[in-house]
């Protein structure tokens, strides 16, 4: 591939722009921050974490200089604790619940402390868990994303032979391929997969179910199968010009960025991003970092309906992104000479009453169409459900929204051989939610295959579940 370097800024500048926004804590920072933690009992942070990591315990272990023990507490409740340390929406989870936030609006930097402890063991390849004695049973896991990795790790600890199948060349799923590069490089989730590998988990990468191996073969090879397949392609706009060169799907765009091959990453001078979710934010902030002069975020509703987290919105504002509220794309236009994106035709939207889902309806304002010259359009509309894939599996059921139906305690589908978790079950949430689902599924698989109940760290709230309504996710 020839070097094209569309960006008006130098590669060195792009490299600087993509420095981590939350860099590693120094030892002095970590000790100071760890000592600031008041060591709550039945702590709100632990309640707020979907995997219920015993946060005060791991922080006090940092303070006492027991970093291996600290990392063990983290990975015990969350096998992708290093990824979550970087990509979790901590503002609405652990740090949002921190009593130091209540007390002085300065929560303990739980995410960065978690990174500090997990970095310590990962950089040394110091494994904190060992595989269980082989129990002669095997589980096949489809998808090496957070749900699959988590499930695989717990099963390996119980002594299962685990094989993960993933169609991509690298393990980690969206953790590897879709996280904003300034939050986390690929290496972190790839290393987490290596930890699982050192526990004996076998990875069959570049392996697509139905193409490289059939479901029937998979079923014959394994006692149980876990589906951690996530979601499908980004939804289409269904407007003219959608397939023009210069129109990208946000996940593909971000995947290109993950290569850090700056010279070959496409970027327009003016970039329009369609959508206002967290992936849309990742797209606008990274387009800006790549050197786009103007980045527009196009959203049919208003700021109030924006699905992105508040702090993500703040990040985009800091990057001088232009927000076009109540604006919907109607066509992507090309130049007369070359078939390439040249402009986006939009229409203004009027907002009506809230619908059944609580979101306000929107309707185009007649005669309000206008055109914005853009060189690049990025679609960030959310991903589609993988209905056609699930239709191939006998006995599994989907709900009305196209999500796999499971028993929420065991994650078992309507076909008892199949378990599932992550985006394909919850419709698209955080990595940490997928990790918890993987944990519950490992418990469910073990129960189903042996009749024995096990409970991993953070499977439930430690105490007082009867009043667990406090700041839960």
């Amino acid at each position, binding site marked *: 591939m020839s070097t094209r370097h569309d960006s008006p800024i130098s590669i060195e500048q792009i490299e600087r722009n993509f420095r981590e926004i939350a860099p590693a804590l120094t030892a002095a920072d970590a*000790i*100071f921050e760890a*000592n*600031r933690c*008041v*060591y*709550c*009992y*039945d*702590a*709100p942070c632990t309640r707020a974490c979907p995997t219920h990591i015993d946060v005060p315990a791991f922080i006090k272990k940092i*303070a006492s200089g027991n970093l291996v023990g600290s990392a063990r507490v983290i990975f015990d409740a969350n096998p992708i604790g290093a990824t979550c340390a970087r990509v979790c929406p901590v503002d609405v989870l652990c740090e949002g619940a921190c*009593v130091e936030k*209540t*007390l002085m609006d300065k929560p303990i930097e739980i995410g960065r402390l978690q990174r500090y402890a997990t970095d310590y063991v990962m950089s040394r390849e110091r494994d904190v868990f060992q595989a269980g004695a082989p129990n002669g049973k095997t589980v096949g896991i489809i998808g090496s994303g957070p749900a699959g990795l988590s499930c695989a790790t717990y099963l390996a600890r119980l002594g299962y032979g685990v094989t993960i199948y993933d169609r991509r060349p690298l393990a980690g799923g969206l953790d590897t391929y879709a996280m904003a590069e300034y939050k986390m490089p690929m290496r972190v989730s790839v290393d987490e997969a290596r930890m699982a590998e050192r526990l004996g988990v076998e990875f069959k990468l570049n392996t697509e179910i139905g193409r490289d191996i059939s479901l029937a073969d998979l079923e014959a090879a394994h006692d149980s199968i876990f589906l951690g397949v996530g979601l499908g392609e980004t939804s289409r706009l269904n407007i003219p010009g959608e397939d023009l060169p210069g129109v990208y799907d946000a996940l593909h765009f971000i995947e290109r960025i993950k290569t850090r091959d700056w010279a070959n990453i496409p970027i327009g001078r003016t970039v329009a991003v369609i959508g206002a979710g967290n992936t849309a934010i990742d797209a606008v902030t990274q387009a800006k970092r790549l050197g786009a002069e103007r980045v527009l975020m196009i959203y049919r509703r208003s700021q109030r309906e924006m699905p992105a987290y508040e702090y993500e919105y703040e990040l985009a504002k800091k990057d001088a992104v232009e927000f076009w509220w109540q604006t919907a794309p109607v066509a992507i236009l090309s130049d007369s000479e070359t078939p390439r994106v040249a402009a986006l035709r939009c229409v203004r939207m009027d907002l009506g009453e809230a619908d059944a889902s609580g979101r306000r309806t929107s309707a185009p304002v007649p005669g309000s169409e206008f055109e914005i010259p853009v060189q690049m359009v990025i679609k960030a509309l959310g991903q589609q459900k993988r209905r056609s894939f699930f239709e191939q599996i006998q006995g599994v059921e989907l709900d009305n929204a196209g999500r796999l139906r499971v028993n929420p305690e065991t994650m078992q589908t309507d076909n008892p051989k199949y378990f599932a978790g992550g985006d394909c079950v919850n419709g698209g949430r955080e990595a940490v939610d997928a990790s918890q689902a993987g944990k519950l599924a490992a418990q469910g698989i073990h129960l189903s295959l042996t009749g024995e109940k096990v409970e991993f760290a953070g499977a439930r709230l430690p105490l*007082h579940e009867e*009043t667990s*309504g*406090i700041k839960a996710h």
Partner: protein
Amino acid sequence: MADLTVNFAGIKSPNPFWLASAPPTNMGSMVERAFDAGWGGAVWKTLGEPIRNVCSRLAAVDMGPQRMMGLNNIELITDRPLEVNLKEIRECKRKYPKHALIISLMVESKREAWHEIAKKVEDTGADGVELNFGCPHGMSERGMGAAMGQVPDYTCMVTEWVKEATRLPVIVKLTPNVTSITPPGRAAVRGGADALSLINTINSVMGVDLETMIPHPNVNGMAAHGGYCGPAVKPIALNMVSELARDPEIGIPISGIGGISTWRDATEFLLLGATTVQVCTAVMHYGYRIVEDMIDGLSNYLDEKGFRSVNEIIGHSVRRITDWGNLDLNYKTVARIDHKICIQCNLCHIACEDGAHQCIPFTEIEGKRFPIVDEAECVGCNLCYLVCPSPGCISMVRLDDGSRPLTWRELTTRQPETMTAD
């Protein structure tokens, strides 16, 4: 602005803040800089036969991010020639006639030796001498320092020797490494001491390096016990100072020493009977400059409390310390938690559950779960109040049922069988 000047056993000082005999008073140039910074007095690093020190000499304990909560040293007395020290003392006193300059002394246990050094010091124009009967390491192995202070008869005897030789006020510095501070304190008074200073440092081993497994401070792979000081020792010092301040057989001024870092610490010593205070560790940590806020803070405190002179608060709280048997058994407090400012850390709950009397259960209020005190079960111990990180959230409230005060002494006089109860 309140008057901060004090008269300590005839020694006048512009304020009650003195530097203790230690590295910060090692030589003339240092003491002069300290006086320039605002220190009212200084006790010169102990004079005696020059010694040879080891390396290293200091070790500390930290408390979380707070460095040097406690400090220990194995440094000995001055390592400078006596004549050099005496010359600098003379010059320093000439330049700073209004400041208090006290010279700490320690020589072998011979009458002539003490006479000789006391006379030499008097000749410099210094304001007083402090007899170092407290140094717990090194010198004590040679029959000096704490070896004197731990035997009341020796304390009395050497004090007498020094009093024979000089008209200067004699301050006896006591060691805390005794089972009771009263006998050595009284012995000093018996020997004719004009004042007492305490505490000297506490015997201590500071810890062990977990990498090398060698204790601190490391002297070529070996360590020896040293003298412990710094903020961590303040409560021990306050106890000993107040013990002597309320002993009618003492009756001479006290210079309080031990963990004083701020004007607050100093004021507590004054309230419990000290006329001056001596500071070392905080200066070793932050420099002479800390005295500025000590003076400023004490002065503002006195103004706000309506005192015209620091002398009005000296010993003010001594009468508030008594023996346990004189405490009112009928005084009753309970903890109250203001759930509106409760941050739900639940430290009070677990502290009460595992460390006290299991009387802070969870209570549901407006859909949230708060720790709330069961007042009928609360013994008023203060623990929850002490652990609570949210200022003002837990208060200790008096429950007055109108019953008259009753002490254990009164109770056991009336009902002798109670003697066996706790």
